[in-house]
């Protein structure tokens, strides 16, 4: 300390001030940019009260929430194991089913979530949901879902309308995906997939990978 001079001290204080500034601005920016915004465009089937999820059979009971990411291999496995039964439940209106496409894995999850929202507007959610999983790349953000990939996935289920193409190209619901993520945070979703019946989590260690147990869990949850 004896060798200290005013120049050193000035530099030190400047560094401390800059670091404090970075931290404060960073925290404020992060808090502001991770809030939901009700001004963003949402698909017609989306309900803010249901965590900005895509709602099928809004008046049926019980309520099943599906939190997913189209790039998540465990979500693909869940769909391939239980999707057929879940789609039957949807078709027969045995439950209100809310899909929450999350985007934690990155940019291509956002591309897929936007596309499935566009498909929901064309009453093609269920088909697009399955088609996206079938088209899932073997690695995350591989580049497979860039460019016209979503148009090709749509085409594979007969979705060729101009409104769908424009919705995909414009990324119409990209900002909405942020609202879905923020709402899932408030709902304490810590993994994908997460399946809830009337707010209660299914057991991910036993009921996701076994179609008999999944069906039993839904029955126990009130799906007749």
């Amino acid at each position, binding site marked *: *300390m004896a*060798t*200290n001079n005013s120049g*050193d001290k000035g*530099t*030190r204080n400047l*560094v*401390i001030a800059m*670091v*404090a500034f*970075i*931290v404060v601005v*960073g*925290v404020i920016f*992060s*808090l502001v*940019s*991770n809030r939901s915004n009700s001004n963003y465009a949402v698909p017609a089937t989306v309900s803010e009260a249901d965590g900005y999820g895509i709602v099928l059979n809004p008046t049926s009971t019980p309520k099943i929430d599906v939190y997913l990411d189209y790039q998540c291999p465990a979500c693909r496995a869940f769909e391939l194991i239980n999707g057929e039964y879940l789609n039957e439940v949807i078709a027969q209106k045995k439950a209100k089913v809310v899909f929450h496409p999350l*985007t*934690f894995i*990155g940019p291509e999850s956002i591309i897929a979530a936007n596309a499935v929202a566009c498909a929901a507007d064309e009453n093609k959610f269920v088909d697009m949901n399955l088609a996206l999983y079938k088209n899932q790349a073997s690695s995350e953000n591989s580049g497979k879902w860039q460019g016209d990939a979503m148009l090709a996935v749509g085409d594979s289920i007969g979705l060729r309308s101009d409104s769908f193409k424009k919705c995909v190209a414009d990324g119409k619901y990209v900002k909405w995906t942020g609202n879905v*993520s*923020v709402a899932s*945070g*408030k709902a*304490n*979703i*810590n*993994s994908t997939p997460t399946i809830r019946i009337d707010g209660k989590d299914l057991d*991910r*260690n036993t009921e996701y990978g076994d179609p008999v147990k999944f069906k039993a869990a839904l029955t126990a949850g009130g799906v007749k």
Partner: protein
Amino acid sequence: MGDKLKIAQPWLTLICRLVLGGVLIAAGVLKIGNLQKSAMAVRAYELLPISLANFLGYSLPWVEIGIGLLLVTGALVRFAGLVGAITMLAFIIAISQAWARGLSIDCGCFGGGGTIDPSQTKYLSEIIRDIGLMALGIYLYFYPKGRFGIEK
């Protein structure tokens, strides 16, 4: 302190600063790209109310970067070393309680985080690493003066 230790101490301080500071900066930067995931990682510990966990998930990465910058540049070393050590202690407690309660989570230390398959947890190595980093912070608290720091 022996003569050899006296010569080594400022260099040890420098090494501790760069390692702990570098790790903290890396941990913070890797989280900032996906703050929703960072919030998810904090929630998965099931320690804090959801809103507080989300707040911590958004703000902690910046605090890590701030402490890391102080350590690397060598400003407020004693304070930053102490805060770094306390942060590591908090991580050790959080990971230990998750382990003890049988949760299956990724610590989310360098991005990532959330509930994972029970077979993928690696609590012991995460705790050992954080104990080592905490030791560096404690050393800096007691020996803050080192080579190439802004503080002389």
